[in-house]
């Protein structure tokens, strides 16, 4: 974008325009004290009093003005609000304005001109209705300008809106064809400096009937110049008058538009020649300005609400989807495209747990990473937004077409989790009223620019601005995510509690099973024995075989119950961690098993590291794995190898050349009582061994898995945390 001149009218900004010490000549001004004694006069007071100002000081006001006509005598009435009022001095009808400035009273008098139009308020009321019925802002502004033009007769009436940077744009205009149009033109902020804007906010209507007026001093000169902020006759800055003259303006009037306490803009009126505006018309304009302000506030509010409602609908859909997802992070990643729709952006970047997901038109991953680094040191609490990123973060100039606008939402106060929305550059043409250049200085003072010819500028590096509704939407998203995370956490807590309860149930069940279920089994066993003893002579071979089967089943049932009890116990006992020499444990087991399995070659191929674990349980792990490796094996010779590799931070393994396990059973072999073979094949067993092994390893923070090829062999791997 074009570089604006550095605060070009900084000196204008310092000019004390509220204490000029002079007034415009179309009226007179008298300063008096609370006792009604006059002290200072505008030098033209003689027109009214017939005596030179020097002769007037110290005399009571009522000598010149019938003060009984003043409205100020009623206690509690603000005389400013009653102004203008009519007074009659020696048969001359005048309009009077009264206000207080510090300890002084100020009365300003102008000859009354024009008829007292009784229909004025009706016209204003009708115009206000017209504003309300306007379908949009442009129409409203046009109607505002047209009504003021009709009411006052100014050649050109403009609705001038201040931007956030206080530069102005003419958003509505009504003009006499003879004058040039400024509609759509922009004016730099320095055209109306800060202290002028402050006066506009205090004094809602200013009139300069003739820009070529001769200022009238207030005499005698006051030791402390009186503050004329509230004055209607106050003399204006010579720079401003020159500015108006350069624009070809002979008379001007402006009406302040204050929306929600902020100077929103002005209704600015220009006339090529000098022009007086009757006090009644000015009062009507002021009242109309109030109505215009209210209507703008109302329309803005409606627009914000409508935007918010639209954003709300999109959000609701998005949140619905989010709420159905189990994992908020996954959901956000998966629905990144919806994030775009959510805020009407061109691209998004989602950074969660150190991983960045990009969607749509975004800067490159490296550029986004650099942007995250930069954001880390910015104030993002929890939102950072700009429609001109490159101005605050120059590297963004490289990718303005994708990210001239940025809205960053920080999802966590501690972790660098973000959602970023990018908006592309909007190439805009701004028409300035006059080329932007440094002001000239000559004969010891500043001069405003001479040309107000339209001067177009291409603006770069800007995106569509982020609206207040969009900020609110982003905050609501954050709240929704937080609420979801909270709900998930609560859900998880309740699931954990449920799991805990189930574990206790399982424990209780296992205990009950171990005792109460075993009791009838014992009874069956006893009665089988009694039958054998008492009826030995009556039992034939077949009967004895059936009794043997009953005994066998009873014993197996009891083993299952014991295994279940043991399994449940592994899950709940306190681990007794200590340094365990795995070599020693494995060698002892090999020694034991070699006795009962002389046909198996057990071999420890590596030196196993010592681990911090529960010794008894480690022994159980290897005993189970080695027993299985030897048992489910029909090779000759049967080989079982025990080893260790540094993979995964240290992995133990038990490899055999056994029957192998089909891939589809890799998971299920670890389930309790899951047996892949008949009860009697491979020496029976309860089917709890691997479930117990898995439970032990998981209790130690490790994991177990297997690789196998049916007919070739299996390898069980496990880690310990």
């Amino acid at each position, binding site marked *: 974008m074009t570089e604006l001149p550095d605060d070009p009218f900084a000196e204008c900004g310092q000019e004390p325009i509220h204490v000029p010490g002079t007034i415009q000549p179309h009226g007179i001004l008298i300063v008096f004290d609370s006792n009604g004694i006059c002290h200072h006069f505008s030098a033209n007071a003689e027109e009214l009093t017939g005596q030179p100002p020097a002769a007037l000081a110290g005399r009571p006001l009522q000598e010149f003005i019938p003060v009984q006509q003043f409205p100020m005598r009623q206690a509690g009435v603000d005389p400013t609000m009653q102004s203008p009022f009519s007074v009659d001095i020696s048969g001359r009808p005048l309009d009077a304005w009264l206000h207080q400035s510090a300890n002084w009273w100020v009365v300003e008098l102008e000859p009354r001109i024009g008829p007292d139009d009784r229909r004025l308020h009706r016209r204003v009321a009708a115009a206000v209705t017209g504003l309300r019925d306007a379908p949009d802002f442009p129409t409203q502004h046009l109607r505002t300008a047209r009504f003021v033009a009709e009411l006052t007769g100014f050649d050109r009436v403009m609705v001038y809106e201040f931007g956030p940077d206080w530069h102005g744009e003419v958003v509505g205009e009504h003009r006499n064809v003879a004058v040039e149009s400024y509609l759509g033109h922009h004016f730099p902020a320095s055209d109306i400096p800060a202290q002028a804007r402050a006066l506009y906010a205090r004094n809602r209507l200013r009139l300069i009937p003739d820009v070529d007026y001769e200022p009238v001093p207030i005499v005698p000169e006051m030791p402390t110049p009186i503050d004329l902020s509230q004055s209607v006759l106050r003399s204006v800055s010579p720079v401003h008058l020159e500015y108006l003259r350069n624009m070809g303006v002979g008379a001007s009037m402006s009406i302040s538009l204050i929306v929600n306490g902020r100077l929103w803009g002005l209704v600015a009126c220009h006339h090529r020649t000098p022009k007086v505006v009757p006090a009644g018309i000015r009062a009507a304009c002021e009242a109309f300005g109030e109505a215009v302000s209210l209507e703008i506030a109302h329309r803005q509010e409606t627009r914000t609400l409508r935007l918010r409602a639209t954003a709300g609908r999109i959000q609701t859909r998005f949140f619905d989807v989010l709420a159905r997802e189990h994992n908020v992070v996954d959901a956000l990643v998966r629905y990144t495209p919806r994030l775009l729709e959510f805020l009407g952006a061109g691209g998004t970047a989602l950074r969660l747990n150190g991983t960045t997901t990009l969607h749509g038109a975004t800067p490159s991953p490296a550029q986004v990473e650099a942007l995250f680094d930069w954001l880390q040191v910015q104030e993002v609490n929890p939102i950072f937004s700009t429609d001109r990123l490159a101005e605050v973060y120059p590297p963004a100039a490289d990718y303005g077409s994708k990210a001239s606008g940025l809205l960053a939402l920080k999802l966590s106060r501690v972790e660098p989790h973000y959602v970023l929305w990018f908006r592309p550059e909007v190439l805009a043409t701004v028409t300035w009223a006059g080329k932007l250049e440094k002001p000239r200085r000559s004969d010891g003072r500043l001069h405003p620019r001479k040309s107000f010819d339209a001067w177009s500028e291409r603006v770069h590096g800007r995106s569509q601005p982020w609206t207040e509704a969009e900020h609110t939407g982003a905050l609501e998203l954050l709240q929704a995510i937080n609420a979801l995370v909270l709900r998930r956490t609560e859900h998880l807590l309740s699931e954990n509690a449920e799991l805990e309860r189930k574990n206790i149930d399982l424990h209780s069940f*296992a*205990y009950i099973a*171990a*005792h109460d279920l*075993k*009791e009838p*089994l*014992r*009874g*069956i*066993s*006893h*009665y*089988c*024995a*009694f039958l054998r*003893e008492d009826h030995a002579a009556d039992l034939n071979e077949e009967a004895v075989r059936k009794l043997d089967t009953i*005994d066998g089943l*009873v*014993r197996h*049932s*009891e083993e299952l119950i*014991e295994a279940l*009890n043991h399994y449940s116990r592994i899950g709940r006992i306190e681990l007794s961690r200590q340094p365990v020499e795995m070599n020693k444990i494995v060698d002892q087991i090999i020694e034991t098993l070699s006795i009962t399995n002389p046909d198996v070659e057990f071999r420890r191929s590596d030196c196993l590291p010592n681990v911090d674990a529960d010794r008894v349980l480690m022994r159980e792990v290897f005993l189970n794995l080695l027993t299985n490796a030897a048992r489910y094996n029909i090779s000759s010779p049967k080989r079982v190898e025990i080893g260790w590799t540094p993979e995964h931070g240290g992995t133990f393994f038990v490899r055999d050349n056994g029957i192998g396990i089909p891939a589809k059973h890799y998971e299920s072999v670890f389930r309790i009582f899951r047996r892949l073979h008949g009860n009697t094949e491979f020496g029976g067993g309860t089917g709890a061994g691997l479930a117990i092994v898995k439970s032990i390893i998981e209790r130690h923070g490790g994991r177990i898995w297997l690789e196998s090829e049916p007919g070739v062999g299996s390898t069980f791997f496990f880690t310990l945390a």
Partner: protein
Amino acid sequence: MKPPGNSVLVVEDFDPDFELVCRRLRAVAPTLQVSRLHDLDEIARWLDHPEPPPSLVLLDLSLRDGDASRLLADFRRALQKVPLVVWSASPDPDVPRRCLASGADRFIRKVADGNAVAKQLDFLIARWVLAPAD
């Protein structure tokens, strides 16, 4: 050497287990008197007047109205020299140690194998009833 005792107190609420005990006692010592208690209430009443003292107490822990292990110490106090044998199906590996610490002389795990239990009972009777050591 003491004369052989003539009674055994069996605390057991499960009939098949009680019957198994009776059968073993009848088989090896037909003259032995067997008295039976079923629950904690009966034990408490009996402990008030533990007469005549039995030659052996066989105590099941899990009774219909609660766990008898807390009465072990009372048994020990009431019957100072009488052998106290706990037999239980409790799966808790810590139970035997606790019972012995509370005064039991022996712990037998009940299993669903009539022959194994019978052998253990035969041994107990031989060891503590028929030929009690000093």
